[in-house]
Protein backbone atom coordinates (compact mmCIF):
# COMPACT_ATOMS: atom_id res chain seq x y z
CA UNK A 1 0.00 0.00 0.00
CA UNK A 2 1.43 3.35 -0.97
CA UNK A 3 0.25 6.94 -1.19
CA UNK A 4 -1.60 6.19 -4.41
CA UNK A 5 -3.73 3.68 -2.58
CA UNK A 6 -4.39 6.26 0.10
CA UNK A 7 -5.33 8.82 -2.53
CA UNK A 8 -7.74 6.30 -3.95
CA UNK A 9 -9.26 5.75 -0.56
CA UNK A 10 -9.64 9.48 -0.03
CA UNK A 11 -11.28 9.95 -3.42
CA UNK A 12 -13.51 7.10 -2.56
CA UNK A 13 -14.98 8.54 0.61
CA UNK A 14 -14.92 12.13 -0.59
CA UNK A 15 -18.43 13.17 -1.52
CA UNK A 16 -20.08 10.46 0.54
CA UNK A 17 -21.23 11.05 4.07
CA UNK A 18 -18.75 8.62 5.53
CA UNK A 19 -16.85 10.19 8.39
CA UNK A 20 -14.32 7.53 9.22
CA UNK A 21 -12.52 4.73 7.49
CA UNK A 22 -10.10 2.39 9.21
CA UNK A 23 -7.96 -0.11 7.34
CA UNK A 24 -5.29 -2.49 8.61
CA UNK A 25 -3.35 -4.96 6.55
CA UNK A 26 0.01 -6.66 6.94
CA UNK A 27 1.08 -4.17 9.58
CA UNK A 28 -0.21 -1.19 7.63
CA UNK A 29 -2.93 0.71 9.39
CA UNK A 30 -4.88 3.55 7.86
CA UNK A 31 -7.52 5.67 9.50
CA UNK A 32 -9.29 8.41 7.57
CA UNK A 33 -11.73 10.73 9.27
CA UNK A 34 -13.75 13.47 7.78
CA UNK A 35 -15.40 16.73 8.78
CA UNK A 36 -16.86 18.08 11.66
CA UNK A 37 -15.61 17.64 15.11
CA UNK A 38 -18.28 18.84 17.35
CA UNK A 39 -17.26 21.39 19.92
CA UNK A 40 -18.95 21.39 23.27
CA UNK A 41 -22.07 23.49 23.69
CA UNK A 42 -22.55 23.79 19.95
CA UNK A 43 -24.79 22.14 17.52
CA UNK A 44 -23.05 19.94 15.01
CA UNK A 45 -21.73 22.35 12.44
CA UNK A 46 -19.32 22.47 9.55
CA UNK A 47 -17.20 25.02 11.33
CA UNK A 48 -13.82 23.60 12.16
CA UNK A 49 -11.89 26.82 12.62
CA UNK A 50 -10.34 27.56 15.95
CA UNK A 51 -12.09 30.38 17.73
CA UNK A 52 -9.79 33.35 18.02
CA UNK A 53 -9.84 35.19 21.31
CA UNK A 54 -10.49 38.93 21.18
CA UNK A 55 -7.02 39.85 22.29
CA UNK A 56 -5.18 38.25 19.41
CA UNK A 57 -6.46 39.80 16.24
CA UNK A 58 -5.28 38.20 13.05
CA UNK A 59 -2.23 40.27 12.26
CA UNK A 60 0.42 38.73 10.06
CA UNK A 61 3.93 38.24 11.43
CA UNK A 62 5.09 41.16 9.28
CA UNK A 63 3.30 43.53 11.63
CA UNK A 64 4.08 44.66 15.13
CA UNK A 65 1.28 45.65 17.48
CA UNK A 66 1.90 48.44 19.95
CA UNK A 67 -0.26 47.92 23.05
CA UNK A 68 -0.80 50.25 25.96
CA UNK A 69 1.42 49.33 28.93
CA UNK A 70 -0.84 51.22 31.37
CA UNK A 71 -4.35 52.48 31.88
CA UNK A 72 -4.63 56.10 30.92
CA UNK A 73 -5.55 58.69 28.34
CA UNK A 74 -4.03 58.45 24.86
CA UNK A 75 -2.50 61.60 23.41
CA UNK A 76 -1.31 61.59 19.81
CA UNK A 77 0.61 64.84 20.29
CA UNK A 78 2.63 66.51 23.03
CA UNK A 79 0.28 69.47 23.28
CA UNK A 80 -3.24 70.28 22.02
CA UNK A 81 -1.92 72.54 19.25
CA UNK A 82 1.06 70.41 18.28
CA UNK A 83 1.31 68.00 15.40
CA UNK A 84 0.83 64.27 16.04
CA UNK A 85 3.96 62.33 16.95
CA UNK A 86 3.29 59.99 14.04
CA UNK A 87 0.84 59.76 11.17
CA UNK A 88 -0.50 56.83 9.21
CA UNK A 89 1.96 55.78 6.50
CA UNK A 90 4.88 57.42 8.24
CA UNK A 91 8.21 55.63 8.66
CA UNK A 92 9.19 55.17 12.33
CA UNK A 93 12.41 53.97 13.88
CA UNK A 94 13.01 52.04 17.06
CA UNK A 95 12.97 54.41 20.03
CA UNK A 96 10.86 57.05 18.31
CA UNK A 97 7.96 58.42 20.35
CA UNK A 98 4.59 57.21 19.07
CA UNK A 99 2.24 58.73 21.62
CA UNK A 100 1.86 59.83 25.22
CA UNK A 101 -0.35 58.13 27.78
CA UNK A 102 -1.38 60.21 30.71
CA UNK A 103 -2.00 58.46 34.02
CA UNK A 104 -2.08 60.14 37.42
CA UNK A 105 -1.10 63.48 35.85
CA UNK A 106 2.09 61.87 34.53
CA UNK A 107 2.84 61.83 30.82
CA UNK A 108 4.25 58.46 29.76
CA UNK A 109 5.95 58.54 26.40
CA UNK A 110 5.50 55.38 24.40
CA UNK A 111 8.38 54.57 22.07
CA UNK A 112 8.40 52.27 19.09
CA UNK A 113 10.18 48.99 19.71
CA UNK A 114 10.67 48.36 15.98
CA UNK A 115 11.53 50.02 12.70
CA UNK A 116 8.66 50.17 10.24
CA UNK A 117 5.73 52.02 8.75
CA UNK A 118 2.65 53.08 10.75
CA UNK A 119 -0.08 51.03 9.14
CA UNK A 120 -2.96 51.71 11.52
CA UNK A 121 -3.68 54.04 14.42
CA UNK A 122 -6.42 52.40 16.44
CA UNK A 123 -6.99 55.02 19.12
CA UNK A 124 -8.15 58.58 18.85
CA UNK A 125 -6.58 61.55 20.53
CA UNK A 126 -7.86 62.04 24.09
CA UNK A 127 -9.46 58.61 24.27
CA UNK A 128 -9.01 56.41 27.39
CA UNK A 129 -6.99 53.22 26.90
CA UNK A 130 -6.93 50.05 28.95
CA UNK A 131 -3.91 47.96 29.77
CA UNK A 132 -3.08 45.85 26.72
CA UNK A 133 -5.29 47.86 24.37
CA UNK A 134 -4.02 47.86 20.77
CA UNK A 135 -2.86 51.33 19.72
CA UNK A 136 -0.75 50.99 16.56
CA UNK A 137 -0.04 48.42 13.87
CA UNK A 138 3.47 48.90 12.50
CA UNK A 139 4.47 47.17 9.28
CA UNK A 140 8.00 45.89 9.80
CA UNK A 141 10.56 47.14 7.30
Amino acid at each position, binding site marked *: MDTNNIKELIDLIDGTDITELYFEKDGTKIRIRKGALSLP*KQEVSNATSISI*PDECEPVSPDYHIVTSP*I*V*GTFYAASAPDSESFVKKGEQVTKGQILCVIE*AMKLMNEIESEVDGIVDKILVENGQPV*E*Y*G*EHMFHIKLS
Partner: protein
Amino acid sequence: MSIFKKILIANRGEIAVRIIRACKELGIGTVAVYSDKEKDSLHLRLADESVCIGPANIAASYLNIPAILTAAELTDAEAIHPGYGFLAENPQFADACAKSNITFIGPTTENILTGGNKIKAKQILRKKGVPVIPGSDGTIDDEKIAYKIAKKVGLPVIIKASAGGGGKGMRVVNEPEELANAIALAHHEAITYFGDGSLYIEKYLTRVRHIEVQIAADKSGNIIHLGERDCSIQRRHQKLIEESPSPIFTEKLRKKIGEYAIKAAKALNYRNVGTIEFILDRADNIYFMEINTRVQVEHPVTEMVTGIDIIKEQIRLAAGYNLSVRQSNININGHSIECRINAEDPVTFVPCPGKIESLRLPGGFGVRIDTAIYQGYTISPHYDSLIAKVIVHGNNRLEAIARMIRALDEFHVEGIKTTIPFHKKVLTNPSFISGKFNTSFIEELNAQEAINGATNSPLS
Protein backbone atom coordinates in the same frame (compact mmCIF):
# COMPACT_ATOMS: atom_id res chain seq x y z
CA MET B 1 -25.51 64.58 50.32
CA SER B 2 -26.50 61.83 47.96
CA ILE B 3 -25.42 58.28 47.21
CA PHE B 4 -22.68 57.78 44.63
CA LYS B 5 -23.55 57.69 40.94
CA LYS B 6 -20.78 55.26 40.11
CA ILE B 7 -18.38 53.05 42.06
CA LEU B 8 -15.24 51.29 40.89
CA ILE B 9 -14.70 47.90 42.49
CA ALA B 10 -10.97 47.29 42.94
CA ASN B 11 -11.30 43.55 43.37
CA ARG B 12 -12.34 40.35 41.62
CA GLY B 13 -14.06 37.01 42.32
CA GLU B 14 -17.01 36.55 44.65
CA ILE B 15 -16.45 39.78 46.61
CA ALA B 16 -16.48 41.89 43.43
CA VAL B 17 -19.75 40.19 42.46
CA ARG B 18 -21.10 40.80 45.99
CA ILE B 19 -20.30 44.52 45.79
CA ILE B 20 -21.73 44.89 42.26
CA ARG B 21 -24.99 43.32 43.50
CA ALA B 22 -25.25 45.84 46.34
CA CYS B 23 -24.53 48.73 43.95
CA LYS B 24 -27.18 47.57 41.49
CA GLU B 25 -29.77 47.37 44.24
CA LEU B 26 -28.85 50.92 45.29
CA GLY B 27 -29.04 52.18 41.70
CA ILE B 28 -25.31 52.89 41.57
CA GLY B 29 -23.32 52.38 38.35
CA THR B 30 -20.41 49.92 38.55
CA VAL B 31 -16.94 49.76 37.04
CA ALA B 32 -15.08 46.45 37.18
CA VAL B 33 -11.31 46.25 36.81
CA TYR B 34 -9.49 43.15 35.65
CA SER B 35 -6.20 41.77 34.47
CA ASP B 36 -5.60 40.87 30.85
CA LYS B 37 -6.21 37.12 31.28
CA GLU B 38 -9.64 37.58 32.84
CA LYS B 39 -11.98 38.41 29.95
CA ASP B 40 -14.30 35.59 31.08
CA SER B 41 -14.57 36.64 34.70
CA LEU B 42 -18.09 37.06 36.03
CA HIS B 43 -17.47 40.44 37.67
CA LEU B 44 -16.83 41.97 34.23
CA ARG B 45 -20.06 40.56 32.89
CA LEU B 46 -22.15 41.88 35.75
CA ALA B 47 -20.62 45.35 35.95
CA ASP B 48 -21.85 48.23 33.77
CA GLU B 49 -18.30 49.04 32.59
CA SER B 50 -14.91 47.42 32.90
CA VAL B 51 -11.29 48.45 32.52
CA CYS B 52 -8.27 46.20 32.03
CA ILE B 53 -5.66 47.48 34.49
CA GLY B 54 -2.66 45.24 33.86
CA PRO B 55 -1.26 41.75 33.46
CA ALA B 56 -2.20 38.74 35.62
CA ASN B 57 0.62 39.45 38.06
CA ILE B 58 -1.30 41.09 40.92
CA ALA B 59 1.43 43.65 41.70
CA ALA B 60 0.92 45.05 38.21
CA SER B 61 -2.90 44.97 38.27
CA TYR B 62 -4.94 44.57 41.47
CA LEU B 63 -2.19 46.17 43.57
CA ASN B 64 -1.39 48.81 40.95
CA ILE B 65 -2.60 52.00 42.68
CA PRO B 66 -1.96 54.40 39.76
CA ALA B 67 -3.72 52.09 37.29
CA ILE B 68 -6.77 51.73 39.55
CA LEU B 69 -7.03 55.45 40.26
CA THR B 70 -6.62 56.24 36.57
CA ALA B 71 -9.38 53.76 35.72
CA ALA B 72 -11.62 55.48 38.29
CA GLU B 73 -10.87 58.91 36.85
CA LEU B 74 -11.40 57.80 33.26
CA THR B 75 -14.77 56.28 34.08
CA ASP B 76 -15.87 59.12 36.40
CA ALA B 77 -16.25 56.79 39.36
CA GLU B 78 -16.85 58.79 42.53
CA ALA B 79 -15.79 56.08 44.93
CA ILE B 80 -13.73 52.90 45.09
CA HIS B 81 -14.71 49.78 47.01
CA PRO B 82 -11.58 47.73 47.73
CA GLY B 83 -13.34 44.53 48.87
CA TYR B 84 -11.04 42.42 51.07
CA GLY B 85 -7.38 41.60 50.45
CA PHE B 86 -5.44 43.46 47.73
CA LEU B 87 -5.60 47.19 48.65
CA ALA B 88 -8.34 46.96 51.28
CA GLU B 89 -6.04 47.65 54.23
CA ASN B 90 -3.43 49.72 52.45
CA PRO B 91 -3.21 53.23 54.02
CA GLN B 92 -1.28 54.59 51.02
CA PHE B 93 -4.17 53.60 48.78
CA ALA B 94 -6.78 55.20 51.06
CA ASP B 95 -4.66 58.35 51.06
CA ALA B 96 -4.15 58.32 47.30
CA CYS B 97 -7.93 58.05 46.81
CA ALA B 98 -8.46 61.07 49.04
CA LYS B 99 -5.87 63.06 47.07
CA SER B 100 -7.65 62.18 43.82
CA ASN B 101 -11.01 63.28 45.31
CA ILE B 102 -12.30 59.72 45.13
CA THR B 103 -14.08 58.30 48.16
CA PHE B 104 -12.38 55.24 49.61
CA ILE B 105 -15.19 52.97 50.83
CA GLY B 106 -13.76 51.98 54.17
CA PRO B 107 -12.53 53.50 57.42
CA THR B 108 -10.18 56.47 57.80
CA THR B 109 -6.49 56.19 56.90
CA GLU B 110 -5.77 56.61 60.62
CA ASN B 111 -8.02 53.61 61.40
CA ILE B 112 -6.19 51.51 58.81
CA LEU B 113 -2.80 52.53 60.22
CA THR B 114 -3.84 51.60 63.76
CA GLY B 115 -5.38 48.32 62.56
CA GLY B 116 -2.11 47.48 60.85
CA ASN B 117 -0.01 48.26 63.91
CA LYS B 118 -1.05 45.54 66.32
CA ILE B 119 1.12 46.82 69.17
CA LYS B 120 -0.39 50.30 69.01
CA ALA B 121 -3.95 48.94 68.81
CA LYS B 122 -3.37 46.80 71.91
CA GLN B 123 -1.88 49.72 73.82
CA ILE B 124 -4.79 52.01 73.02
CA LEU B 125 -7.44 49.48 73.95
CA ARG B 126 -5.76 48.31 77.14
CA LYS B 127 -5.79 51.91 78.36
CA LYS B 128 -9.53 52.12 77.64
CA GLY B 129 -10.26 49.03 79.68
CA VAL B 130 -10.65 46.45 76.92
CA PRO B 131 -8.91 43.26 78.08
CA VAL B 132 -6.02 42.27 75.84
CA ILE B 133 -3.99 39.08 75.80
CA PRO B 134 -1.31 39.25 78.54
CA GLY B 135 2.11 40.07 77.10
CA SER B 136 4.46 42.90 76.27
CA ASP B 137 3.10 46.43 76.34
CA GLY B 138 4.90 47.45 73.16
CA THR B 139 7.77 46.12 71.13
CA ILE B 140 10.32 43.81 72.72
CA ASP B 141 13.49 45.72 72.34
CA ASP B 142 15.69 43.23 74.08
CA GLU B 143 15.74 39.54 74.85
CA LYS B 144 15.79 40.03 78.62
CA ILE B 145 12.43 41.77 78.59
CA ALA B 146 11.05 38.89 76.56
CA TYR B 147 12.29 36.43 79.23
CA LYS B 148 10.71 38.50 81.97
CA ILE B 149 7.33 38.62 80.24
CA ALA B 150 7.43 34.94 79.39
CA LYS B 151 8.08 34.18 83.03
CA LYS B 152 5.28 36.49 84.15
CA VAL B 153 2.54 35.25 81.81
CA GLY B 154 3.76 31.64 81.71
CA LEU B 155 4.74 29.47 78.77
CA PRO B 156 3.84 28.84 75.99
CA VAL B 157 4.15 32.33 74.53
CA ILE B 158 3.93 33.56 70.96
CA ILE B 159 6.23 36.05 69.25
CA LYS B 160 4.37 38.15 66.66
CA ALA B 161 5.30 40.78 64.12
CA SER B 162 3.57 44.09 64.80
CA ALA B 163 2.86 44.56 61.10
CA GLY B 164 2.10 40.86 60.60
CA GLY B 165 -0.74 38.74 59.36
CA GLY B 166 -1.49 35.47 57.64
CA GLY B 167 0.65 33.42 60.01
CA LYS B 168 3.90 35.03 58.86
CA GLY B 169 6.39 36.36 61.40
CA MET B 170 4.87 34.26 64.19
CA ARG B 171 6.72 31.82 66.46
CA VAL B 172 5.34 29.76 69.35
CA VAL B 173 7.75 29.19 72.24
CA ASN B 174 7.20 26.25 74.58
CA GLU B 175 10.54 26.16 76.45
CA PRO B 176 12.60 29.08 77.82
CA GLU B 177 15.69 28.06 75.84
CA GLU B 178 13.77 28.37 72.54
CA LEU B 179 13.05 32.07 73.13
CA ALA B 180 16.23 33.67 71.77
CA ASN B 181 16.16 31.69 68.57
CA ALA B 182 12.42 32.30 68.04
CA ILE B 183 12.90 36.06 68.38
CA ALA B 184 15.73 36.00 65.82
CA LEU B 185 13.66 34.00 63.33
CA ALA B 186 10.48 36.05 63.77
CA HIS B 187 12.48 39.27 63.42
CA HIS B 188 14.01 38.03 60.19
CA GLU B 189 10.58 36.99 58.81
CA ALA B 190 8.97 40.27 59.85
CA ILE B 191 11.63 42.25 57.97
CA THR B 192 11.35 39.98 54.95
CA TYR B 193 7.58 40.01 54.67
CA PHE B 194 6.53 43.35 56.12
CA GLY B 195 9.68 45.51 55.98
CA ASP B 196 9.27 46.15 59.71
CA GLY B 197 11.06 44.01 62.29
CA SER B 198 9.03 45.16 65.33
CA LEU B 199 7.95 42.23 67.46
CA TYR B 200 5.75 41.75 70.48
CA ILE B 201 5.14 38.85 72.81
CA GLU B 202 1.87 37.38 74.07
CA LYS B 203 0.70 34.45 76.10
CA TYR B 204 -0.12 31.68 73.61
CA LEU B 205 -3.68 30.63 74.25
CA THR B 206 -4.62 27.24 72.86
CA ARG B 207 -7.92 25.39 72.59
CA VAL B 208 -9.72 28.74 72.60
CA ARG B 209 -12.47 30.12 70.41
CA HIS B 210 -12.03 32.76 67.78
CA ILE B 211 -14.94 35.17 68.19
CA GLU B 212 -15.27 38.39 66.22
CA VAL B 213 -17.80 41.21 66.36
CA GLN B 214 -19.06 43.12 63.34
CA ILE B 215 -19.22 46.85 63.98
CA ALA B 216 -20.45 49.84 61.99
CA ALA B 217 -19.91 53.52 62.79
CA ASP B 218 -21.07 56.73 61.18
CA LYS B 219 -19.53 60.20 60.95
CA SER B 220 -21.77 61.44 63.75
CA GLY B 221 -20.15 59.04 66.19
CA ASN B 222 -22.98 56.49 66.34
CA ILE B 223 -21.59 52.98 66.69
CA ILE B 224 -23.47 49.69 66.56
CA HIS B 225 -22.44 46.06 66.68
CA LEU B 226 -24.20 43.27 64.78
CA GLY B 227 -23.48 40.40 67.16
CA GLU B 228 -20.67 37.89 67.09
CA ARG B 229 -19.33 35.42 64.54
CA ASP B 230 -17.66 32.21 65.69
CA CYS B 231 -14.70 31.46 63.41
CA SER B 232 -13.04 28.74 65.46
CA ILE B 233 -12.99 26.18 62.65
CA GLN B 234 -9.62 27.04 61.15
CA ARG B 235 -6.80 25.20 59.43
CA ARG B 236 -3.42 26.83 59.86
CA HIS B 237 -5.03 30.16 60.83
CA GLN B 238 -7.25 30.07 57.72
CA LYS B 239 -10.96 30.21 58.53
CA LEU B 240 -12.99 27.43 56.90
CA ILE B 241 -16.41 27.55 58.56
CA GLU B 242 -17.97 30.54 60.30
CA GLU B 243 -21.27 30.90 62.09
CA SER B 244 -23.47 33.42 63.81
CA PRO B 245 -24.43 33.38 66.61
CA SER B 246 -21.70 31.42 68.39
CA PRO B 247 -23.15 28.10 69.59
CA ILE B 248 -21.75 28.61 73.11
CA PHE B 249 -22.73 32.21 73.62
CA THR B 250 -25.14 33.34 76.30
CA GLU B 251 -26.99 36.66 76.14
CA LYS B 252 -24.73 37.88 78.94
CA LEU B 253 -21.54 37.03 77.04
CA ARG B 254 -22.95 38.62 73.86
CA LYS B 255 -23.73 41.82 75.74
CA LYS B 256 -20.24 41.88 77.24
CA ILE B 257 -18.34 41.28 73.98
CA GLY B 258 -20.59 43.78 72.19
CA GLU B 259 -19.72 46.41 74.79
CA TYR B 260 -16.01 45.69 74.36
CA ALA B 261 -16.34 45.98 70.58
CA ILE B 262 -18.11 49.32 70.82
CA LYS B 263 -15.60 50.57 73.39
CA ALA B 264 -12.80 49.57 71.01
CA ALA B 265 -14.42 51.30 68.04
CA LYS B 266 -14.95 54.44 70.14
CA ALA B 267 -11.34 54.41 71.40
CA LEU B 268 -10.06 54.17 67.83
CA ASN B 269 -12.49 56.84 66.58
CA TYR B 270 -13.61 54.23 64.05
CA ARG B 271 -15.66 54.98 60.92
CA ASN B 272 -17.46 52.71 58.43
CA VAL B 273 -17.67 48.93 58.97
CA GLY B 274 -15.05 46.76 60.61
CA THR B 275 -14.48 43.72 62.76
CA ILE B 276 -13.03 43.41 66.23
CA GLU B 277 -11.46 40.01 66.74
CA PHE B 278 -11.37 38.43 70.17
CA ILE B 279 -10.19 35.25 71.83
CA LEU B 280 -12.54 33.48 74.22
CA ASP B 281 -10.68 31.17 76.60
CA ARG B 282 -12.01 28.11 78.37
CA ALA B 283 -13.02 30.18 81.39
CA ASP B 284 -15.08 32.54 79.19
CA ASN B 285 -12.49 35.30 79.48
CA ILE B 286 -12.55 37.63 76.49
CA TYR B 287 -9.34 39.12 75.11
CA PHE B 288 -9.00 41.62 72.29
CA MET B 289 -6.81 40.22 69.49
CA GLU B 290 -6.92 42.60 66.54
CA ILE B 291 -9.11 44.86 64.42
CA ASN B 292 -9.82 44.24 60.74
CA THR B 293 -10.48 47.50 58.95
CA ARG B 294 -12.45 46.09 56.01
CA VAL B 295 -15.41 43.92 55.11
CA GLN B 296 -14.69 40.26 55.81
CA VAL B 297 -15.16 37.07 53.80
CA GLU B 298 -17.58 35.83 56.47
CA HIS B 299 -19.79 38.96 56.62
CA PRO B 300 -22.79 37.09 55.12
CA VAL B 301 -23.52 35.04 58.28
CA THR B 302 -24.14 38.32 60.12
CA GLU B 303 -26.34 39.55 57.26
CA MET B 304 -28.40 36.36 57.41
CA VAL B 305 -29.21 36.64 61.14
CA THR B 306 -29.64 40.43 61.32
CA GLY B 307 -31.22 41.10 57.92
CA ILE B 308 -28.80 44.01 57.47
CA ASP B 309 -27.00 44.27 54.13
CA ILE B 310 -23.50 45.12 55.37
CA ILE B 311 -22.18 46.16 51.96
CA LYS B 312 -25.08 48.53 51.32
CA GLU B 313 -24.65 49.97 54.80
CA GLN B 314 -20.92 50.36 54.16
CA ILE B 315 -21.53 52.26 50.91
CA ARG B 316 -24.12 54.51 52.54
CA LEU B 317 -21.77 55.28 55.44
CA ALA B 318 -18.97 56.12 52.99
CA ALA B 319 -21.35 58.49 51.20
CA GLY B 320 -21.83 60.35 54.48
CA TYR B 321 -25.16 58.93 55.64
CA ASN B 322 -25.72 58.07 59.26
CA LEU B 323 -26.37 54.49 60.35
CA SER B 324 -29.71 53.21 59.07
CA VAL B 325 -30.43 51.24 62.27
CA ARG B 326 -29.99 51.68 65.99
CA GLN B 327 -28.57 49.09 68.35
CA SER B 328 -32.02 48.55 69.87
CA ASN B 329 -33.44 47.52 66.47
CA ILE B 330 -30.88 44.80 65.87
CA ASN B 331 -32.15 41.30 66.55
CA ILE B 332 -30.37 38.02 65.97
CA ASN B 333 -32.86 35.74 64.17
CA GLY B 334 -32.10 32.04 63.84
CA HIS B 335 -28.69 30.70 62.95
CA SER B 336 -26.39 31.05 59.95
CA ILE B 337 -23.34 29.04 58.83
CA GLU B 338 -20.90 29.70 56.00
CA CYS B 339 -18.61 27.13 54.36
CA ARG B 340 -15.76 28.46 52.25
CA ILE B 341 -15.45 26.16 49.27
CA ASN B 342 -11.93 26.17 47.86
CA ALA B 343 -10.58 24.69 44.63
CA GLU B 344 -8.26 22.45 46.61
CA ASP B 345 -7.71 18.78 47.21
CA PRO B 346 -9.98 17.95 50.19
CA VAL B 347 -7.25 15.90 51.90
CA THR B 348 -3.98 17.66 51.09
CA PHE B 349 -5.44 21.17 50.54
CA VAL B 350 -3.22 21.57 47.49
CA PRO B 351 -4.80 24.16 45.16
CA CYS B 352 -6.45 22.64 42.13
CA PRO B 353 -7.31 25.28 39.52
CA GLY B 354 -8.81 24.25 36.18
CA LYS B 355 -11.89 24.34 34.02
CA ILE B 356 -15.33 23.80 35.52
CA GLU B 357 -16.75 21.22 33.14
CA SER B 358 -20.07 20.83 34.89
CA LEU B 359 -21.72 22.79 37.68
CA ARG B 360 -24.96 22.71 39.64
CA LEU B 361 -25.07 25.09 42.58
CA PRO B 362 -27.31 24.38 45.58
CA GLY B 363 -30.52 26.38 46.00
CA GLY B 364 -33.86 26.50 47.76
CA PHE B 365 -35.05 27.83 51.10
CA GLY B 366 -32.40 29.27 53.41
CA VAL B 367 -29.50 28.76 50.99
CA ARG B 368 -27.38 31.64 49.68
CA ILE B 369 -24.50 31.27 47.24
CA ASP B 370 -21.87 33.95 46.81
CA THR B 371 -19.66 32.96 43.91
CA ALA B 372 -18.11 34.12 40.65
CA ILE B 373 -17.84 30.69 39.02
CA TYR B 374 -20.05 29.19 36.33
CA GLN B 375 -20.05 26.14 34.09
CA GLY B 376 -17.32 26.56 31.49
CA TYR B 377 -15.26 29.02 33.57
CA THR B 378 -11.59 28.28 34.07
CA ILE B 379 -10.26 28.98 37.55
CA SER B 380 -6.98 30.86 37.27
CA PRO B 381 -3.95 29.72 39.27
CA HIS B 382 -3.05 33.40 39.80
CA TYR B 383 -5.58 34.07 42.52
CA ASP B 384 -7.05 32.83 45.77
CA SER B 385 -8.54 29.34 45.71
CA LEU B 386 -11.89 30.43 47.24
CA ILE B 387 -14.48 29.58 44.57
CA ALA B 388 -17.77 29.83 46.42
CA LYS B 389 -19.27 30.62 49.76
CA VAL B 390 -22.24 28.47 50.71
CA ILE B 391 -24.25 30.27 53.37
CA VAL B 392 -27.33 28.81 55.04
CA HIS B 393 -29.89 30.14 57.47
CA GLY B 394 -32.14 28.08 59.71
CA ASN B 395 -34.44 28.69 62.64
CA ASN B 396 -31.84 27.08 64.88
CA ARG B 397 -28.31 25.69 64.63
CA LEU B 398 -29.35 22.08 64.00
CA GLU B 399 -31.62 23.12 61.14
CA ALA B 400 -28.78 25.22 59.72
CA ILE B 401 -26.37 22.25 59.91
CA ALA B 402 -28.89 19.90 58.24
CA ARG B 403 -29.50 22.52 55.56
CA MET B 404 -25.77 22.98 54.94
CA ILE B 405 -25.25 19.23 54.59
CA ARG B 406 -28.08 18.96 52.07
CA ALA B 407 -26.76 22.03 50.20
CA LEU B 408 -23.27 20.54 49.97
CA ASP B 409 -24.78 17.22 48.84
CA GLU B 410 -26.43 19.14 46.00
CA PHE B 411 -23.28 21.07 45.05
CA HIS B 412 -22.17 19.28 41.89
CA VAL B 413 -18.91 20.31 40.27
CA GLU B 414 -16.79 18.48 37.70
CA GLY B 415 -13.35 19.35 36.38
CA ILE B 416 -11.72 20.53 39.59
CA LYS B 417 -11.29 19.20 43.11
CA THR B 418 -12.97 21.12 45.91
CA THR B 419 -12.98 21.07 49.70
CA ILE B 420 -16.67 20.10 49.78
CA PRO B 421 -15.95 16.55 51.10
CA PHE B 422 -13.86 18.04 53.88
CA HIS B 423 -16.69 20.36 54.92
CA LYS B 424 -19.14 17.46 55.02
CA LYS B 425 -16.77 15.58 57.31
CA VAL B 426 -16.66 18.53 59.71
CA LEU B 427 -20.43 19.14 59.59
CA THR B 428 -21.21 15.53 60.52
CA ASN B 429 -18.60 15.38 63.29
CA PRO B 430 -20.23 14.99 66.74
CA SER B 431 -17.99 17.63 68.34
CA PHE B 432 -18.96 20.13 65.67
CA ILE B 433 -22.64 19.29 66.02
CA SER B 434 -22.47 19.64 69.81
CA GLY B 435 -20.95 23.10 69.38
CA LYS B 436 -18.12 22.18 71.74
CA PHE B 437 -14.97 22.78 69.72
CA ASN B 438 -12.06 25.18 69.62
CA THR B 439 -9.39 26.46 67.26
CA SER B 440 -7.55 23.10 67.46
CA PHE B 441 -10.54 21.20 66.05
CA ILE B 442 -9.20 20.60 62.52
CA GLU B 443 -5.70 19.74 63.75
CA GLU B 444 -7.09 17.20 66.20
CA LEU B 445 -9.48 15.80 63.62
CA ASN B 446 -6.59 15.23 61.22
CA ALA B 447 -4.43 13.73 63.98
CA GLN B 448 -7.27 11.39 64.93
CA GLU B 449 -7.63 10.30 61.33
CA ALA B 450 -3.90 9.70 61.04
CA ILE B 451 -4.17 7.38 64.07
CA ASN B 452 -7.20 5.60 62.64
CA GLY B 453 -5.24 5.07 59.48
CA ALA B 454 -5.56 7.08 56.33
CA THR B 455 -7.16 4.16 54.52
CA ASN B 456 -10.18 4.34 56.81
CA SER B 457 -10.83 7.95 56.00
CA PRO B 458 -13.82 8.49 53.74
CA LEU B 459 -11.80 11.16 52.00
CA SER B 460 -8.69 9.20 51.13
